[in-house]
Structures are given as C-alpha cells and as structure tokens.
C-alpha cells in the first residue's frame, strides 16, 4: 500500500471541499477501495472518509424512495419498503459478497466498485488498459471466463461486478451527484460507461464529484420482481450471469417489464431489446428465449466465456417464466 493521508469529512460541504484536491478518493465501506489500495491498483494521495455522512432511506417526493449514499448494503436489503416494493433490489444485494462485507459496504461505494478482472488486479505482472491506459489488455487472450460478451472494446473486456447495480439499472434509478460544478442527477443507465478506448473511466463522474443519493422512482410493477444470480459456487462468488426482472401482466400478455443483466458487460446491462420484444407480447417460453436471443445477437464471446449468451438466455427464460406464471421453468 502506498502511504496516504486520511481525513474524515464532517459534512457534505466539507467532503466536497476536500474532494476538490487532486488524486483523492472518497471512502465508503472500504470493501473494494482498500483492497485496490493494498494491491496498489489505486494509490490516492488522500482518502476522504464519507461513510459517516448522514445516510437514510426516506420516501421521496415523487412517491419513490431516496437512499442516502452512506446507507449500508445490509440496511438497504433489509428495509421493509425495499422488500415490499422493490424485492429484486433486496435479493440482488443479498446475492452479493458476504454478510460481513454487506455490513460495511455503502450504496455509493457499491456503484463505484471496480472490475474483478484478475489482470486488472495484477499490477506487477500483467498489462491492463483500465489500470494503465495504453499498456494493453492481457485478459482478451487470457483467462476471461468472467468477462464481457456485450459492449466490450478492443481495449477492455472487463465486467462490472456489482449485483445491486443490476437491480438499480432495471429499476430506472436516479443517481444524485454533487461536485465542484454543483448538484446534478443522472439516470442510472448513464452513470457507468462502456469501455470504448478509455476503459480507465468506469463512470461519467467528474473529478471531485460525490454520489450523494440514489433515488428509486415509483414503479408498481417492481413489486413483482426478482433477481437470479448464477455463479461457480453457492455463495461468495461474482456472477457469471445474473438477471434482474420485473413483470406486469395483463391477462396472458406482458403489459410492461424491466430486465437487466449482470456479468455480461462493462456496465449493468439494461436489456432494452429484450424488453421491447416482450412488451405487449404473449408470455411463452419461446418468446422469452427469442427476446434473450435478440439481446445477445451482437455478443462477441472470448476464449473462456462462450457459454454466457446461452446461460443468460436460459436464466432469463426461467426468471420470466417464474414471474409470469409463478412457476419455475
């Protein structure tokens, strides 16, 4: 670990003031940032602890929920309103990490966690454009079982590791941000970037910008939603593929739905093509599979992850079957 200064922000204004310096990192639960610092993937000169800033879960003016960035993952997953109105979010959080990590991890930090690509973590021995822009990508022709099949670039094939963010993408969450340029909001789907030729930038946040809250808009259909994660062991493993989905039925037709995939791209993947194919359609196993196939039509598998489109298709079909019929596929 590279030596650094540590400061605890007394309030949001203090955090923003301190955050205006160069080479700073905001510290939430530290469950990812501290690992990255230990591995010297991240070497901030100054760490500003924002984990003690006020964090609450409150009803928002628009009828949704406003979730403070410092809310711990466990508190969010256990919150009664989240469990009742957005069950996919509770399930996504509980599918991730371990109880100990969830007790520490914050909402803001979860949004900003970085890829688990092993070449990204190997500072001494591997090339990585995300860690060292322009150095090359050793994952493209190396171990890439957990890597992206959608939206990747020549420069980077990493995936975003969060489970919670997959649910937030499906729920059309709104991210509240404050920074040197003032306060702003952005749709969740615009927070994370595809790698393109600048994979070192995971998000569109400007230097010094601090996530202050995540807002869940009212979404009645989310009351019938779930999250399913497929992984290499029963717990404490990142998703090979995950699906967050919510469905509202009108007879045997799908009135409306939301779908997002995890584990397939550089960002939580909102499945707009699959949604469009299914919105208004009659629910059937074939329709689900066709919709997933449309979503993955442009998939570009690598050496080790060729199973992902098929796995995602099967998993989506099973999830939608469960949500539309109440029965497992």
């Amino acid at each position: 670990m590279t030596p650094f200064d540590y400061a605890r922000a007394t309030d949001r204004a203090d955090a923003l003031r301190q955050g205006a310096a160069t080479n700073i990192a905001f510290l939430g639960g530290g469950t990812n940032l501290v690992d990255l610092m230990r591995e010297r993937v991240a070497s901030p000169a100054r760490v500003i602890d924002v984990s003690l800033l006020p964090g609450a879960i409150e009803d928002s003016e628009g009828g949704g929920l406003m979730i403070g960035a410092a809310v711990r993952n466990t508190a969010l997953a256990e919150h009664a309103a989240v469990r009742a109105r957005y069950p996919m979010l509770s399930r996504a959080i509980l599918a991730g990490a371990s109880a100990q990590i969830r007790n520490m991890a914050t909402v803001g930090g979860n949004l900003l966690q970085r890829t688990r690509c092993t070449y990204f973590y190997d500072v001494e021995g591997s090339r990585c454009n995300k860690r060292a822009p322009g150095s090359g990508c050793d994952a493209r022709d190396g171990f890439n079982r957990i890597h992206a099949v959608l939206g990747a670039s020549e420069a980077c094939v990493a995936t975003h590791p969060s489970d919670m963010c997959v649910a937030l993408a499906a729920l059309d969450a709104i991210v509240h941000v404050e920074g040197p340029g003032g306060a702003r909001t952005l749709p969740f789907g615009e927070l994370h970037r595809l790698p393109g030729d600048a994979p070192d930038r995971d998000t569109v946040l400007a230097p010094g910008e601090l996530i202050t809250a995540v807002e869940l808009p009212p979404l009645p259909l989310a009351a019938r939603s779930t999250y399913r994660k497929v992984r290499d062991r029963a717990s404490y493993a990142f998703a090979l593929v995950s699906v967050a989905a919510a469905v509202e039925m009108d007879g045997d037709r799908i009135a409306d739905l939301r779908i997002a995939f995890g584990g397939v791209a550089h960002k939580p993947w909102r499945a707009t093509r699959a949604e469009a194919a299914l919105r208004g359609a009659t629910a059937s196993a074939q329709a689900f599979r066709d919709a997933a196939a449309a979503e993955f039509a442009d998939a570009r598998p690598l050496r080790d992850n060729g199973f992902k489109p098929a796995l995602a298709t099967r998993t989506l079909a099973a999830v939608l079957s469960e949500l539309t019929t109440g029965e497992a596929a």
Partner: protein
Amino acid sequence: MSIVDTAKQTAQGLMQGALEKLVPLAPDSWIPGGVPDPLIARKHGLIGSPVSRLDGRLKVTGAAPFAAEYRFDNMVYAALTYATIARGRIAALETAAAEAAPGVVLVMTYRNAPRMAPPPAFGSSPGGVGPADLPILQDDRIHWNGQPIACVLAETQEQADHAAALIAITYAEEPSTTSLTGAKANGIEQALFMGQKLLNEIGDPEGALAAAPYRVDQVYRTPRHSHNPIEPHAATLAWIGDELVIHDASQMVSQQAQTMADVFGLKAEQVRLTSPYVGGGFGSKGLWDHQVIAAAAAKLSGRPVRIALSREGVYRTVGGRTLTEQRVAIGADADGRFQSLIHTGLAVMTPHNAMPEPFILGSRATYAAPNILLKVEVARMNMLANTFMRAPGEAVGTFALESAIDELATELGIDPVELRIRNEPDKDPISGLPFSSRHIVEAWRQGAARFGWDSRAPAPAMRQEGEWRIGMGCATGTYPYYRMPGAEARITLTRDGDGVRALVEVAAAEMGMGTSTTTAIVAAERLGLPLDWVEVGYGDSAIPGAIMAGGSQQTAAIGAAVIAAQGALVAELLKLAGNDSPLAGLSVDEVGCDAGGLAKLDEPARRESYASILARAQRDSVSATRPGSPPLELMHWSMHSHSALFCEVRVNAVTGETRVSRFLGSFDCGRILNAKTAASQFRGGIIMGLGMALMEETQFDERNGRIMNPSLAEYHVPVHLDVPEIDVIWTDIPDPHTPMGAHGVGEIGITGVAAAVANAIYNATGTRVRDLPITLDRLL
C-alpha cells in the same frame, strides 16, 4: 466447563472403567507370528472415544501462538518482491528508492545476500526437504514467474510492503516452457518417485483389453491446485550467538531444521526450530524460499525477522498439486471381472524438483486384474516447483480410475457397487503379498444401506424435482498405510506428590489435526495413567528423532516409538525398583503398566506405583529414549485403507449449477483412535474433495507461466453453503499388524470424492465430465 475440562472428565471416567485391565508391554515386532499390540485388545478405554482437542481452548481463545505471532526484541518485518517472467536473468535492479523509503533496514538481493548452499531437494537425502535444488537469492537467474528476487526488512510490515514495491527490475528474458503442449514437445520421461519408477506391468494389458468383450478407454484431466491452508506460511526467527532459532509453521520440524543447517553450513544442533501450532498444512508446510531468505536477511541485518507471506505470496512461492492427464482403460468379461487394467498418463513438474504426481499408487492394490499396466510419465515446465498436496497421487488418480469404473458399470449394466465388490482382490495384485487388514466389502455394504443406495435410479437423468436433476454416485477411496523410519520417543516420569506426571516427547508435527491429543490418549493408555497426567512434547527440533506429518503415517510412527520407549522405561523402572520392591526379580516381559505403576501380568496384586519406585530409589524422575523399530510390517503385508463413498447431487437443468445434497463416507482404516478428530479428518478431506470436483483450479497463464488467481476470492474453495451434511462411519476393525491397530486417517478422506461427485452428476444428467473442475458450463 471448558472443552479441556470436559475432555479430561470424559477421559478420567473412561480411564476408571479401564483401570482394572492390565496392559502388557507391546511386542517390538511387526512380523508374521508377532503378537499384536496389546492395546488392540483394550476395548473399553479411552481409545476410540470422542475426545476434543486438548489445545482447543487455547486455539479458540487466541492463546496458542502461531509462527507469525512470536516476537523477538528489536524484530523487523520482511516483504518479498517476486519475478514476473518465467525464465531469464535480472538485467537491472534499482533498489535506491526502496532503501530510502521510511523505516527500511535492509534491501537484500542476490547481490548482497550471504553465500548459502542450495537446499537439498526433497527426497534427495534423508534430511533434505528443500522445494527444489535451486540456489536461493544467489544469482541473477529467474526460474519461475513468482520467484522471490528481493527482500526488504523494515520496522513495520506496512513499511516493508511499500518499499518492496519500489524495487524496479529489468529482465533479460530467455526462452521458457510454460504450456503443456510445449512441455510435451520437449520430451517426456519415465517418472521416478522416491527413487522408484512409477511403472508396473503384468501380463499383456493391451492385448487383454483388445480381447475383452466389454471395455472403457478414456482420458481424464485434472488441473493445478494451489495450497490454501487457513494460516499463510510464516516464520519468526533470530540468530542468537551462532545458533539460528526459528519459530515456523512446519509439518516436518526436524527435517526443516536439518535442511536449514545444510543451507547455512551449520551443525544440526545449531538450528532450533519450533512449531507447536500450525494452521493447516496439507503437504505445504515445509521448507520454501521464504524461511531461507528471512534467515539470510536476519544474518545480514543483525536483527530478528518476522516473515509472514501474503496470500498472494503463498501462491507465488509455495508449490501446489500439478496437473495430470490420465488414461484409464479397463477390459472386463460379461460378469464384470477385470481382464485388463491400464492406468497411465502424464504429470508436469519442473527441471529442478522430483515430485511427479504419482497418480497410479491407488491403482496398485484396489482391484484384481490378471493384466495390469500402470505408468506415470513427466514433462517439464518452467514454473514454481509442484509439491505434495493431501493424498498426492491418489486424490487425482482415484478420480480417473473410479470414473472409468462407473463408465464400465454403465457399459455392463451392473450396479457400480456390485462391480467393485466383484473385483475385490484376495492378495496384492502387484506384489502378491497378503493384505494385513482389508474390510472394504463391509464398508460398502454398511455404507450402501445407510445411504439408501438402493433408491438410486438405474439409468441417468431419471429423477427431477422442479429445475433440479437428482443423481447418486459412488466411488472407492484408497490410501496406503505407511510408517517411516527415524521416529524416536522420550518418556519421562516425574514425581508429583503421590503420583507421577508423564512427559512424552516426539519430534512430531501438529498441523491442527489432533496429533498431540491422540498421542496423549495412546500414551495414557499405554502407561496406565489418567489423560491429564500426560503431557505431550512435540513440534521442536530439540526433541530427538525425526517424524513427519506426511503420508498419513505420523500416528503409526509415534506409536511404534512410544512402544519402544515404554519398554526401555519399564526396564529402567525395574532396575530402580531393586530387591525391596514387590516387583523384585521380575523381568520386563512379566510386567505391565497399570493404574499408575507396574504390576505382574498374571498376578496383578503384585505391583508398585511409579511414584513409590522413584521415591525408594530417591529419584525425582526417570527417562527413556528409544527409536521405533524398523517398519518391517511393510515388507510382509500389503497395507491399505479404503473408503466407500456415496454422493447425491442436484444439478440445475437451467443453469448447470451443481449442488452436492448428501454425502456419506464409509471408511475401513483400522482402529479409530479418537472418534472426534478422525471424523473431522474424514469430513475435511471430503470437503476438500468437493472443491476439487467442482471448483478448484489454479489459473496458470500458459503465455508467461503466471498464476492469475492468487487469492481466495478468485481461487474457489467450497464455502459453507456448498457443503452438505456429511455422514461418516467406519468399520473400526483393528489391523493386527500396526501399532494400536490403526491406519492413518489424514489423507484418505479426499480420495475418490471427485469421482463420486462426477459419477453422481452422470446419474443425474447423463453427461459424463472427464475434466476437473466440473463447472456449470460443462453441464449446459
């Protein structure tokens, strides 16, 4: 009440029941006609009851000092820098920034390291346990990606870690072999294991295979596995005068001290190595580069050193299990009787070590066949030296063999349990020796009944509940009985009021499996003392003899040494007893140990307590040291343990995820000495086998030989949710030709497990997976 108290009370209660019976001295012979260890006849004592670890409370309260918890005054902390190429030279080495970093005491590289001899590689000399025959930090050569090339000492661990990252290295790369294809192209050789060819051939195996009406002939692959004991490797050491004192984490205490002495040109007695508590070893807690480097840096700096490897450091510098490619071919007649058994293949090792994964060992004595070919060949690769990992050979060899038998059972339409029983040999198929003790058929019958094997679907893919396909599989596990020479025991009786305390010292290693507790149990029974009067000394190179916690043989080695020392101790006591004792005139063969003293075997009332003998002789204590007798039993019998394993899996029809829902291990391992610690060994081995079956794999990048998942986040072992209730039972039939009638139990647990899982997956899905690990993509 503490666990220790509970254990002692249990033990005392049991002791009182047992005290009426006299234990004669054990015969010091393990040859035909010899009398079995009399402890075998002792059915109602402490042996076999569930006794908690006597050091359990120390461990759970954090009071047991592990290697990285010892302190010396003025101690500094070490950090290592590792090479990032597979082969070549260090062209430039920039250490100024590290030397100038805060807290740094020393930066040591090949340029300034003291001159040291290469450690003798494991197996090359009686005491040598080096990882390879490579010099350590003596020149600019790089032999593997991950090799330590610099060591920083600093006042804190954080300062050392930071400075180690500031060392800039430029390499001159040289051609290397880091792919399996490349290694094969370089040529393959007959493997030698402990100096012996891994080759057995009887009859005409290929001809008999071709002529057999039923046959299987398949290739099975197992990947590299990395060692992940919960305690990463560490040592705290100091030069005190001309003596090197090392607090290490070791499963081969005396041998490591000897090898360190060899490296530094010292006499053996100038190295004192202690290792009372070890957080798991599994074959990995031996001598690697880090102890040598830390001792050299301590010498150069004049400061005591603590070196505690990071988890990544363990992956880079502590070898694991190598990969294998195995062919198993079996030809059988219509009744399922094997006409030919062929088990051959390839393992990979380095140019500098001598550890071919001996995967045919378990195939030598498990099944009868008139024509047999067993052969291991090796190819060489530039990589970290591979090493022993729990049941080296058998763990992966049984995956191939027992999968093939399942495939043959399918071909034949014979129940796989029945097929195995039909091929039970009546003597060792290779050596022709009789078996010392073999009750695997009982283990199969008992296990099958308890597991409900008769409810298994006779054909694959017949049972499904919701998304989950359900199947059952079975396999045989096997591991040999060994007893290595070199063990000694010292027993000291010391007066304590009207009684005595016994100190039993053996140069043994306790990796956490319960050796010290089991040794105390056996010694208490043998000496006729309550358990809490017996203390066991171990894990210290100052204790005479050399015992290794390896090959599942430590308990037998200790047992034979304690028998010998007890005989000498009794002789000494009779001498001290003199003419005024009720025992006057009796010979060693006429007395036994009983209720805190000696008694005449056929006249138990004629007795005298140890304390009384010592008091009359005006002695505070009496001591005897003896080596165990040579392991002659291994020359007269074929000696093996076996297990019958039953597994139920659920495989998700949508995602291919496998969940093991039930597991039963039915073991035939001689007499069980401590039901609690033995059950933990069996269960732990089975859990490790589940990991091997479903998830463990070291990601070795064949482009540059670098391990890419050096952490427990990315290298998957089973988490709690992956492990079902595991039922273990045992025959508990003593082997009349071993100390205590016992066989080792440390390694057999993992053997056969991967095959039982793979066979259950086949039964659930109809998909046969021959490459480990069986990840979900193989089942989509």
